[in-house]
């Protein structure tokens, strides 16, 4: 019983991190039809920012906004420098561009910080926990889950109630018509990247709090998980992204618990296998609607 509760907490914490990543990926995809490979590098960037400013002795309360701000700035710069050149291009062109951008950033980190992983020294209170019965619960897991839920809620309210949110949603469903309605295309797109940057920064905070080293390729694995979650949930569906993320986390925890002994190195392989199996029956993902544009793309 205790084991089960422990694993459920574990699942909620992993799922939350995946959800934050998947939301950022899905948000950009829904509006620009761009699958942003560089999303992982936004997280790496935030990780290096934490490492860098911590070296200057900046207190942790300030480091949190710095981490988020750095990935927001990186996201906006990325849009301005790379993606704006190819606005309105074919989805495949955009995909390849973001793939190239992601690798360029990785090599940039390599040149700037070297290949050796840098340890980020989180304060001790990150490891704080409390005990209920026999169960050790880490505050970090609780905070991760609560913040994620708060973000999902805020994002939902923002998208449904605010004018900017309305613009974003209408841009996601038909960008051309949205522009004809007098909505500023640049403002919508930059806004999207700002939100995606915030999500990447938060995800980076929680991700690096549980694995406190940052290397040039740190962002790849969480990015891939976020992608898989988005694809399972249905490309471009925000609800799908969150549900896909928690589904992926559930699969991962379940496979990890049920596999015995030497087999646990195959967790990723098995989880991806199941994900592919889901796509066999729902190629557009669980919440993806097949639209005419999707068929053509």
């Amino acid at each position, binding site marked *: 019983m205790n084991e089960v509760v422990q694993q459920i907490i574990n699942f909620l914490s992993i799922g939350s991190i995946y959800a934050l990543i998947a939301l950022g990926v899905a948000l950009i995809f829904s509006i620009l039809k761009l699958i942003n490979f560089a999303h992982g590098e936004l997280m790496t960037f935030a990780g290096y920012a934490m490492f860098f400013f911590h070296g200057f002795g900046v207190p942790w309360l300030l480091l949190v906004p710095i981490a988020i701000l750095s990935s927001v700035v990186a996201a906006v710069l990325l849009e301005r420098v*790379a993606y704006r050149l190819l606005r309105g*291009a074919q989805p495949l062109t955009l995909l*390849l561009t973001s793939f190239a951008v992601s690798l360029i950033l990785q090599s940039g980190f*390599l*040149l700037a910080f070297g290949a050796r992983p840098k340890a980020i020294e989180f304060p001790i209170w990150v490891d704080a926990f409390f005990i209920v019965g026999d169960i050790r619960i880490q505050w970090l897991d609780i905070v991760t889950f609560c913040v994620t839920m708060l973000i999902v809620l805020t994002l939902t309210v923002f998208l449904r109630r605010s004018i900017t949110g309305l613009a974003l949603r209408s841009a996601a469903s038909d960008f051309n018509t949205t522009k004809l309605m007098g909505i500023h295309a640049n403002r919508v797109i930059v806004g999207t990247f700002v939100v995606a940057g915030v999500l990447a920064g938060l995800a980076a905070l929680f991700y690096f709090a549980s694995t406190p080293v940052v290397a040039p390729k740190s962002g790849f694995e969480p990015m891939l998980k976020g*992608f*898989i979650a988005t694809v399972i949930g249905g*490309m471009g569906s925000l609800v799908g992204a969150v549900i896909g993320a928690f589904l992926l986390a559930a699969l991962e925890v379940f496979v990890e618990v049920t596999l015995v002994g030497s087999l646990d190195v195959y967790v990723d*392989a098995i989880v991806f296998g199941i994900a592919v199996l889901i796509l066999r029956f729902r*190629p557009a993902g669980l919440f993806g609607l097949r639209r005419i544009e999707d068929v053509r793309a």
Partner: protein
Amino acid sequence: MMLFAHDRWWVRALSGATLLFLLVAVVVVAVDLFGSATDRRIATTFLISLVVVTGMQTYVGNSGILSFGHTGFMALGAYGSALFTASTTIKQRAIPDAPSFIVDAELGLLPATLIGIAVAMVVAYAIGITIVRLAGAAAAVATLGFLVVVFTVLSNTDQLTRGAKAFSGIPPYTNLYTGLIVVAITFVCARLLRDSNMGLCLRSSRDDELAAQASGVNIIRSRMVMWVASAGLAALGGALYAHFVLAILPKAFHFHMTFILVTMVIVGGQSISGALVGTASITIIEEFLRRAENGFSIGSFSLDELPGLTTIILGLLIILTMILRPKGVLGRWEIDELLVRRFKKRTASALPRPSAKGAWTNSHTIGEGHYSAKSVVKESNQP
């Protein structure tokens, strides 16, 4: 020139493949005669990349759907061929726990390579059931996932592959001339597949999926056939690679190699000639950068991690290609098709100018399915 515009598609395909092969062969023979040992090594890695890139192109180019998974098939071909050709004594030492039909086997190059290809094609069929139903971003993510799966499995199956450690003792069969033979086979297969009905169906779905479907093209089936075939060609390239480097490890078939191969595919274009152009240019650029960076080194495949500069420049090259020529340098054309177009243009301008309507019917009686109406009209408008 007559052969390139022949009525029968397979004559066009074979003559086109021959033209490309002759281009490669002339260069390779020249390198063999006049080049240094380093040049010969570079030329061999070029031939290996060319086989894999042409294999990738068979799916990616014709379907317009990106795949990051072909390095995985390459790995399967490499391990398949390596495990069945290495001598029993080596295997008893390196992988004593492997099944006896692998440890005791000491096959020749051909049967072992065929086993590798068969394994890759079976795996391709199994995951193809899902993959061919996906397009665009979802396909890219799913194939990337597949690559990770192959990597995880290979680097953890210690009793079969020595895990993350290198499997060495592979007999050296690959040289410039075996490479050339494999390139010839690959070109012929790839070109026949491309120009066959199946390939035409797939290309039509690339250019307009709805229209293709409305014309009765079974997209899923044509994708599946080409997907499995292209996995087989990638595995063939993998076998060639294994018998060249003589020691393989899972890490070699991971992101770095995928990145290089995908860059070659993208820069060249969506045709087999594009694969040749992309592979040749990237091999040269990479070699040049490497020399500029390290002073001296060999081969386009390295087990070491590349210093960042090469990746940055290749990445910028992809972005540049995307901005200037999103469909690659050659677009969807083969070199021989471009020659025919050139030739027709010249003869058309020598004759009295036909009306646009005349040009239409003309092109239809010749039966050139790959001529779009737009290019015909443009041609007839030439002064």
